[in-house]
């Protein structure tokens, strides 16, 4: 391994070595190539955005990272070590949490219970002690409940603690889903379009939460987002995908001036 290079962002945060590294990932569904030979890394402490037009393969990329999809070619390196093929729930136990584009909450459960499920990877008591409700199980429940309450405070959703999330408006559901992912205290947080379908005010709130999470807990974040303004504001580095291929990678400024990226977004004149 070469020495870990670190650098400092314009606003003074320190970015460390790669937490997750994708090397030559190719993912196919039958004859359709969703991701074609893509490599990039996600560094410790940074906010890494993945952008691109619809159908570019961005969500597929997140699904590869969290184990829903297994790429036909290429490797994923976790802290410099090659990751063996794992099931999604095992990867969750490796400290990778995520949210979904179309919100995947447990709709019948309360906000509190939803966020509590995020603590599962930190709860070690066995099923027998749950049945008997003795010893470890009870204590563990209390400790984890406190952590969850702190997240609820942080996300300013105290008033909806007991509400079944199916009844909440869209913007709040997105926030609860973020809370559930945060509860896992992940070393890598994957956000799939955290601001899709939100109004300006909700987007500002969500941007603030994402920045705060990154700043206060030092959580590494990889996110997919369509709103270019938001991405340019909060991301440290950006990967641009189009038709399953990587067409740009760098700081927001670099990406903005990249001709391929401009073509992909504005269309190319065919002459």
């Amino acid at each position, binding site marked *: 391994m070469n020495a870990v290079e670190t650098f400092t962002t314009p606003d003074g945060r320190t970015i460390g070595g790669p937490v997750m590294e994708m090397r030559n990932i190719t993912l196919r569904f039958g004859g359709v190539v969703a991701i074609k030979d893509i490599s990039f890394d996600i560094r410790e402490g940074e906010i890494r955005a993945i952008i691109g037009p619809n159908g570019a393969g961005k969500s597929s990329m997140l699904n590869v990272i969290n184990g829903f999809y297994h790429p036909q070619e290429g490797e994923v390196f976790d802290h410099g070590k090659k990751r063996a093929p794992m099931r999604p*729930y095992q990867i*969750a*136990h490796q400290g990778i949490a995520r949210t979904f584009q179309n919100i995947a909450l447990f709709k019948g459960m309360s906000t509190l*219970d939803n966020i509590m*499920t995020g603590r599962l990877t930190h709860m070690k008591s066995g099923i027998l002690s749950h*049945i008997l409700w003795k010893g470890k199980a009870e204590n563990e429940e209390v400790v984890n409940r406190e952590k969850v309450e702190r997240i609820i405070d942080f996300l300013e959703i105290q008033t909806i603690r007991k509400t079944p999330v199916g009844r909440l408006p869209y913007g709040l559901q997105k926030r609860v889903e973020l809370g*559930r992912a945060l509860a896992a205290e992940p070393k890598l947080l994957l956000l799939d379009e955290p601001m899709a379908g939100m109004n300006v005010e909700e987007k500002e709130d969500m941007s603030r939460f994402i920045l705060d999470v990154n700043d206060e807990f030092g959580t590494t974040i990889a996110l997919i987002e369509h709103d270019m303004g938001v991405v340019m504001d909060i991301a440290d580095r950006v990967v641009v995908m189009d038709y399953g291929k990587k067409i740009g990678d760098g700081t927001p400024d670099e990406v903005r001036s990249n001709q391929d990226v401009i073509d992909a977004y504005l269309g190319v004149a065919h002459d």
Partner: protein
Amino acid sequence: MPAGFYFGIEVFLNGLMAGVMYSLVALGFVLIFKASGIFNYAQGVMALFAALTLVGLQNGQVPFAHLINAIFGTEVHHFGWHLPVFFAILLTLGVMVLFAFLVEKLILKHLVNQEPIILFMACIGLAYFMEGFGDLMWGSEIKKLDVGIPQGGNFWIEEVTSGLGGDGFYGFYLDTLDIYATVIAALLVISLVLFSQYTKTGRALRAVADDHQAALSVGISLRAIWVIVWTIAGFVALVAGIMWGSKSGVQFSLSLIALKALPVLMLGGFTSIPGAIVGGLIIGVGEKMFEFLIGVPFLGGATENWFAYMLALMFLVFRPQGLFGEKIIERV
């Protein structure tokens, strides 16, 4: 008060207790349906199988005796011991856990993400396989199950209430076994609800019932949860098997009680534990009262055979999700 009124109450109480027995079977259905969306047709056969195993273990029957004798020309039938009830129940529970493991390993694992109808067919297959397997393992004759729960009319209640109705009334006749069944079912339901509401595993169960992908993303292993769910359903089947077996003997018609659970589920809703209980009680009381008030005087009796299904049919028309079923709300 006329004696007829008290007979009515007696019928009502007996209906409630019959309803508890239906609820016990319906409960097993609901548990599995909630967690995996599978309509487990085999629930009734699981109760039968559990009861068969319990009797077999208790009486020291040699499993597969017929098969062994046919192949090796031996004449073994019994080990010649009688296991204590508690020990036999514990062993049966072990068998049901093993069963849950095998169901996951041999069937569910290969059918992830399949259509519900395919899973349903798998359960029908499982039901008939288990019926045959139970027969092969323990023999098909009707067996008496006695786990020490007293049976017959409860004299205490009869005596205390005999004064109520005057000369023609001799007090309420309630089967002691039914009273035990009611108490046990109540305890079972309370502990199930506590377990699912207040423990990590319970929360994981509810999470899986709600959204598979999201459950995976927070680190829940679907397969582990399925084993747990089928184990719990096996446990409920065991309790139902003990109660029904003690009441009417362990016989293969026991598996048909699954069919009685169907109207209960339609009434209570497929996804609600309280629904299974209340649905069972309504069906139990409804069919006994209907028989008493209308069936016997006007229709020539035997209405108990079809009343539950009629009631379920009416519910399907007016409230398809059942009394307590989750209303399907889609945000648009």
